[in-house]
């Protein structure tokens, strides 16, 4: 028996300089950052105030930061694919298939699970409790566990860069290719365990937010007064609860096949690969709406704020949201019309898929009418929103095309499909994330992001997007399959070049975003948001100071209508001072910070690594550690901390003073 299971020196890709160098660079950077933190004496602060934090705002910020770092990783993968396809005409290019196949698999996996998901979840975590007028989520420590389990998944995926390999079978591990016979390496195991661990985190986060929204709203905040972002968050998290267990179970079955010789999806012994496709897409289609619904919520908030108008057709937006929430569970089969199920089945699912386009179309028109009659300010979040509306309808159109079975018979699985889903997911989710990032950044940190660099990033991204993905439609129509490491058809190459130029433009966009952050931190005094409402907002988060205190609200706001904050602001503007009387402050109980989440994730990584490499003693160790963490947490005596009323009063009165000043100066 080997002490380290399958692990030996052959796991390190000495023959592949690119991942080796990239991995070394990442390790150096991480060590550098850690060294800096210790050298500057920041370690206790980072440990106590961030890593152990159970504050939903900090957890939200950490989710989004994780997503942004992973966006860079995922984008580097994309850039490598683009350049490879530019040069790989009649030649092997510079990436051998063994490596190229890992890259597209890692790109897809990372972009969906570790960029789009954490970004959206981070925004929901940060914003929803503030918009609901409450002090935290329902289960703060669970929230921290969810975050760190996601981070554990991220760590495992990135570890595969230097230890072993990542999956080479695409972002969804279709069997039998992903079975042991055809993928004997550790790649698929990395993929599965990373997603099993982070999937548990996602599910926990979903339960948390649903409970929060259903059970913890401010007094008077009935369902029909809830900001639309909270509605979309509710829908999205309900879908997480319904769909993610399916993913976990499906991957578990695949793992049973791979580890214990089961035959759920194998070629032989009665395995059924079609079952896998059904199961994975029963999760997979709702997943895209899990991502896009909160994004629609962001756009609703942004368009309404920057048009200076309430959202047009608020109730029909709710209906549309909930309709999408339900219908999206009824369309999964459109991902395999080409499995040959026959005209009736294909027809039904084709129509069901198109029906989703109706509520989505309604939303576009409602945003349009929100702008109509408004006073539109083209600030960065609004620019992202307008670019989204324009671009998304194109993606929606190609989506409906793919929902027509015979069209799909010829477009399925080629670059047309790749163009389509980037055309919906980049404007639909990523642009929303960027809009939300700029929009809520001042709330989180107390200063705004630089406008000029923000606009530069916007233009590079949008132009880059069109250049990078419109050619893919053409290449798809010209019959180029997806996931091609090399090719022999000359007419594809010019389009591949155009797409590479687009990717380079996106690279400039990302660079502008980095510069924007640096410049804004430098100029934070000029960009200061001194009273908490930098965009003339309409929902409750803008009533708090920026950044909000740990307890968010000194007293729970009393909501008397839609757009709770707007009403109060109007009154205050008339009187040129805050009209709410100074409340009676009370001691507040807030949950204590806890290392439970981080420690849990540490043991989860240990267990994941042990499982991937068959190091059974490490698995036992990890399990004992995780269990001990649970016991320690369950037996804790103190779980709350009192914030004395003097402290609450001090913070709130200071904020009131700043706001009153701003009101008198007519700045609000």
């Amino acid at each position: 028996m080997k002490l380290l299971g399958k692990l030996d020196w052959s796991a390190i890709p000495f023959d592949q300089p690119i991942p080796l160098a990239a991995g070394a660079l990442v390790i150096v950077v991480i060590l550098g950052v850690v060294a800096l933190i210790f050298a500057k004496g920041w370690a206790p602060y980072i440990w106590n105030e961030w890593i152990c934090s159970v504050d939903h705002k900090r957890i939200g910020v950490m989710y989004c930061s994780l997503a942004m770092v992973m966006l860079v990783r995922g984008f580097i993968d994309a850039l490598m694919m683009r350049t490879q396809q530019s040069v790989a005409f009649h030649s092997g290019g510079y990436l051998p298939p063994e490596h190229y196949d890992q890259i597209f698999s890692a790109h897809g996996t990372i972009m969906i699970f570790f960029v789009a998901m954490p970004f959206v979840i981070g925004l929901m975590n940060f914003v929803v409790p503030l918009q609901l007028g409450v002090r935290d989520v329902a289960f703060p420590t669970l929230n921290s566990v969810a975050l760190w389990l996601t981070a554990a998944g991220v760590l495992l995926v990135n570890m595969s860069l230097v230890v072993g390999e990542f999956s080479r079978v695409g972002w969804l591990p279709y069997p039998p290719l992903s079975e042991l016979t055809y993928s004997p390496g550790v790649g698929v195991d990395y993929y599965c365990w990373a997603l099993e661990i982070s999937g548990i985190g996602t599910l926990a986060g979903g339960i948390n937010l649903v409970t929060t929204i259903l059970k913890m709203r401010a007094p008077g905040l009935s369902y029909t007064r809830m900001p639309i972002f909270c509605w979309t968050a509710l829908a999205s998290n309900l879908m997480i609860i319904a769909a993610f267990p399916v993913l976990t179970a499906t991957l578990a079955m695949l793992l049973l096949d791979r580890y214990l010789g089961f035959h759920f999806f194998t070629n032989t012994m009665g395995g059924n690969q079609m079952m896998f496709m059904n199961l994975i897409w029963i999760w997979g289609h709702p997943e895209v709406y899990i991502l896009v619904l909160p994004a629609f919520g962001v756009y609703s908030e942004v368009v309404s704020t920057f048009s200076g108008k309430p959202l047009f057709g608020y109730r029909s937006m709710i209906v549309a949201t909930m309709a999408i929430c339900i219908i999206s569970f009824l369309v999964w089969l459109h991902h395999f019309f080409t499995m040959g199920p026959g005209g009736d089945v294909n027809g039904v699912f084709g129509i069901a898929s198109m029906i989703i386009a109706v509520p989505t179309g309604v939303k576009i028109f409602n945003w349009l009418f929100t702008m109509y009659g408004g006073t539109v300010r083209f600030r960065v979040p609004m620019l992202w929103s307008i670019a989204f509306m324009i671009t998304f309808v194109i993606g929606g159109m190609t989506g409906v095309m793919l929902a027509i079975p015979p069209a799909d018979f010829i477009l399925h699985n080629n670059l047309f499909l790749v163009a389509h889903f980037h055309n919906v997911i980049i404007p639909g989710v990523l642009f929303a994330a960027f809009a939300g990032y700029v929009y809520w950044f001042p709330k989180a940190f107390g200063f705004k992001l630089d406008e000029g660099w923000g606009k530069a990033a916007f233009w590079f991204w949008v132009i880059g997007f069109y250049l990078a993905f419109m050619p893919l439609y053409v290449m798809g129509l010209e019959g180029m399959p997806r996931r091609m490491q090399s090719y022999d058809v000359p007419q594809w190459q010019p389009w591949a070049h155009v797409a590479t130029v687009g990717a380079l433009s996106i690279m400039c966009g990302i660079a502008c975003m980095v510069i924007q952050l640096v410049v804004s931190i430098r100029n934070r005094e000029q960009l200061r948001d001194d009273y908490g409402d930098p965009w003339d907002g309409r929902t409750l988060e803008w009533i708090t100071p920026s950044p909000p205190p740990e307890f968010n609200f000194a007293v729970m706001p009393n909501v008397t209508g839609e757009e709770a904050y707007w009403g109060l602001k109007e009154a205050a503007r008339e009187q040129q001072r805050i009209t709410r009387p100074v409340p009676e402050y009370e001691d507040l109980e807030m949950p204590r910070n806890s290392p439970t989440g981080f420690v849990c994730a540490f043991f989860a990584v240990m267990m994941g690594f042990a499982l991937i490499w068959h190091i059974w003693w490490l698995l036992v160790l990890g399990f004992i550690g995780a269990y001990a963490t649970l016991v320690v947490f369950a037996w804790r005596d103190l779980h709350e901390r009192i914030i004395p009323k003097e402290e609450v009063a001090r913070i709130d009165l200071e904020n009131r003073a700043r706001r009153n000043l701003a009101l008198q100066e007519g700045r609000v």
Partner: protein
Amino acid sequence: MDIMASPPRRGRFRPPAAARVLGLVCLILMTGCREDSVFTPIGPVANGERLIILDSVVIMLAIVIPTILATVVVAWWFRASNRRAKRDPSFVYSGRVELVVWSIPALTILFLGSLAWISAHDLDPAKPLKSNVQPLDVEVVAMDWKWLFIYPTQGVATINRLVAPTGTPLRMHLTSATVMNTLFAPEVGSQIYVMNGMVGTMWWQVDRTGTYFGQSNMFSGDGFPGMRFEVAGVSPAQFDAWVAATRGRGPALDETGYRALLKQSSDLKPYAYGSVAPGLFDAIVQQKLPPGEGPVQAGNKNPFVRPVRSP
């Protein structure tokens, strides 16, 4: 008001730029597709599918383009600096607008839904093609990473080359000796997944002579890009001549030959087998012959960590 708001300046946000991009895109799409593509169909299947694609695009563009224009125009007209725009912040609900807003997409989808329903039946890959010509049977096996085409009636087989007499419906039965794949030739038409232990039926027809590009369209492992095949459209007379010239010559595809094929290889040049063991296809489907063995046997140092494709 927003404290930082510099008055929005003219020229910062340029809808014409967006419009220009869009124009460029349409242009690209139109010019791009005149080359070999789904828009140059060579048979009834691709032809039907091309029609569906065009129909649906045209129908949807009729809404998509006005929506895009309306977005740009409304956003621009109601910009904060436009003195002439009439502001009405209380315009937040209108039953009439709601009705229109729900019915436009609903009607479109009703229309396209009917199109989907009818065409899903008409163009079902398994539906026999109507023709006076007797269909030709072809049995297709996806392997790691090549295509095996068996002509059971003629008793010949090819690798990576589908020889198709023009004007003759091809009645294809498809399976896989390995993982999932799809047989895809953009100018010919439909694709369906092929799976081990299962048979799919698909009809193709090539109406013009010439050589056309084909490729597996479902990623199937490291050698996947080399899983190309050509569709050779030949006249029926040429087809018969080809069969006569091939039969009895060259290698024979018996069980030993087949087992050799199961080893992973890609980028194979097309070649033909002069004879085929009878019932080979059925034996593959019924798994009397084993499925492909994957990369393990390829003689890597440690295939359980990072398998490398055999040369």
